[in-house]
């Protein structure tokens, strides 16, 4: 963000229409240039341009209330040890220099403004631009490498984006800045599987619903570059592989931040500069962050609909353990000779539901036939709250109230009607490989986190999550 400071202290308004919940954070997620989301004592925080920021109890519903002094633009935050390092930047135009900007760092023991330990240290000047060089020293981003080395990236469209190493104990620079990219904003770095990635934005900033902001990425084996895109173009030559741009009704994706939920589950935070469903405001957004062929991939927002829930273990689909009612017709091994050919109707719910028990029906995993007992409607339950990046869902047999539910014996079954009980609410996280983790909000009498697993090819259950275990992975195939 460079030319326009958004007004601070957005007034909280009534949350967006419930139908929007699948696509954006709910509550009052109004922010520009959000910092990387950081968890502190069970709450989530992000800071924005102009000061202040957002707090969320669950990572889904956001409200103003985070406190960051210093004003300025485009902060970032990271937890190091038991402290939080917050950086932000300001530009001093008092002497007529348009790009004399400084990056400041300050520490805090907590991000909770209500905590007695909440107290920022004095802002410390750690990097910037002198106003005469091809760099505008704002938009700082922090990264802790796998070796414990701390890196700061900063810069805007005015010249180069730079990387400098900081002492992780005090955030004091311990290297000379290195130019790594040109004509980027909102730089952020991350490390994954032997590669350092430089995320940044290209496109027009600060134009609201007319912004062309988009997040691009390059990678390098070194935190100081060179960072190349997927066609081998150096980011210092303008290269960058597109990670995420605008979506329908959400315009101008920028200011990437990475949030690792657990091994195998990551989220990316950013803003859309203009949300057409929310008066064109700039809003915090989160998407699944996946990895493919060594490159980050932005997952699409979850969409309510009818799905096959397919186990990655064998490729079979979750189904009610009911009698398989055969379709009438078909010719088996016969080719049918010269008989006229006509389309057959799909099996319909009303064709089979009368054969199902009325109360509890257990589950199995079976070959996919696209039958009613295999068709699941997954819909968000807005009043049930959410988790980092998503809202809890109910999973019911399409056309019925029959709901997937976790049981006290650490198994899964279905009950005749959805009641909203926590064991009937499901958290659906896209994993970094593109598959899904499906986890009940609660399991009766069980404190440990359990997820839907295929313990056998044909048998679902609940078990501990292991991102390396294919039993924990599911694909959701949207049925049109």
């Amino acid at each position, binding site marked *: 963000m460079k030319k326009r400071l958004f007004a601070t202290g957005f007034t909280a308004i009534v949350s967006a229409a419930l139908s929007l919940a699948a696509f954006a954070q709910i509550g009052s997620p109004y922010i520009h240039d959000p910092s990387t989301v950081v968890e502190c004592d069970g709450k989530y925080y992000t800071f924005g341009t102009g000061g202040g920021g957002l707090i969320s109890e669950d990572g889904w519903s956001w409200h103003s209330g985070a406190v960051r002094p210093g004003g300025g633009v485009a902060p970032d935050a990271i937890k190091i040890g038991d402290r939080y390092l917050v950086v932000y930047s300001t530009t001093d135009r008092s002497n007529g220099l348009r790009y004399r900007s400084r990056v400041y760092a300050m520490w805090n023991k907590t991000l909770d403004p209500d905590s007695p330990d909440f107290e920022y240290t004095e802002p410390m000047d750690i990097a910037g631009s002198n106003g005469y060089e091809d760099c505008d020293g704002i938009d700082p981003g922090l990264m802790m490498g796998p070796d414990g080395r701390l890196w700061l990236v900063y810069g805007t469209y005015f010249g180069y984006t730079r990387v400098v190493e900081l002492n992780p104990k005090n955030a004091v620079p311990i290297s000379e800045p290195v130019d790594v990219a040109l004509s980027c904003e909102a730089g952020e770095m991350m490390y994954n599987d032997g590669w350092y990635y430089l995320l940044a934005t290209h496109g027009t900033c600060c134009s609201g619903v007319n912004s062309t902001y988009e997040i691009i990425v390059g990678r390098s084996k070194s935190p100081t570059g060179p960072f190349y895109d997927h066609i081998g173009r150096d980011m210092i030559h303008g290269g960058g592989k597109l990670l995420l741009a605008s979506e329908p009704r959400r315009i101008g994706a920028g200011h990437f931040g990475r949030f690792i939920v657990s091994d195998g589950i990551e989220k990316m935070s950013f803003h859309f500069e203009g949300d057409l469903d929310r008066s064109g405001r700039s809003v915090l957004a989160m998407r699944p962050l996946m990895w493919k062929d060594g490159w980050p991939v932005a997952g699409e927002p979850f969409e309510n609909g009818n799905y096959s829930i397919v186990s990655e273990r064998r490729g079979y689909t979750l189904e009610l*353990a009911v*009698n398989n009612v055969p379709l009438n017709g078909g010719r088996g091994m016969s080719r049918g000779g010269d008989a006229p050919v006509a389309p057959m109707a799909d099996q319909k719910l009303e064709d089979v539901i009368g054969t199902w028990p009325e109360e509890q029906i257990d589950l199995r995993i079976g070959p996919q036939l696209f039958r009613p007992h295999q068709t699941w409607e997954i819909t968000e339950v807005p009043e049930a709250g959410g988790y980092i990046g998503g809202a809890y869902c109910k999973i019911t047999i399409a056309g019925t109230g029959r709901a997937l539910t976790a049981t006290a014996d650490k198994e899964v079954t279905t009950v005749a009607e959805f009641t909203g009980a926590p064991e009937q609410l499901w958290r659906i996280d896209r994993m970094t490989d593109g598959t899904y983790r499906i986890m009940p909000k609660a399991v009766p009498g069980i404190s440990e986190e359990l997820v839907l697993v295929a313990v*056998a090819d*044909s048998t679902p259950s609940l078990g501990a999550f292991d991102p390396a275990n294919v039993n924990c992975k599911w694909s959701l195939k949207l049925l049109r």
Partner: protein
Amino acid sequence: MKHPILSKWRILAILAAAVFFSQGGIPARSQNVAASDGYRAVFSDYYTPATSVPATPGPDGFIRRWTLLEPIAKSFSSNSMLTDNYLSETMAEEYFKDQFTIIPEDGSKVKYGKTNLVWHALDSKKYFVNLLRFAEGYGKEYFQQMYWAVTIIDCEEDLKDVRLSGGANSGAVWYLNGEEVLRLTNDRDLIVDDCMSKRVTLHKGRNILRGAVLNGQGMATFCLRFVDEQGKPVTAYTVSSIMPKKRR
């Protein structure tokens, strides 16, 4: 795809069975068996007689010692008929006295209708139990049959939160200590860890695992083992069959 009944093979099987009965049995202690050299060889590829010395599951955990009942004919044309309802109705019938409580002795008989069926205590040489070869070996029809199996599991301590895991060709229902714990429906193949029970406890002392496998056409097999929470084989128990006193 299962092949339709091949009548010539059925005829051959029946002829072989006649030879089988006339020449003395496999294993030798069984009273009503006989076999051609061919059937004797095939049978011995799959089975050895169980002994009075308790067996242990191998590292893979599969239970190889079973007391198998000579098959009971059932009439169903396709394994796809082995639905939940069909299995429920089938297992609700009484085929022989004390079918859910009997701990059969090797060589003992039960009466099914007017027919005496013999229990055979065997050790499978494979990780799975080949029921077709079992029936064939004892001169019995092997298509459209119901195969009962029982084994005794002795534990030195409770083994909690284990699962009975298995595969079958095709339908099967398994009971641990009298309770149904695992059901395999529809047309299935022999697949390791195809289906699992809920978490169960193998109690300290004696546990009885019994069940029935149904198959229409083609190969008839099953495999079973217990696994832990991580899906690893559970092997800390012994498996045995009841032997006649004279062979103990």
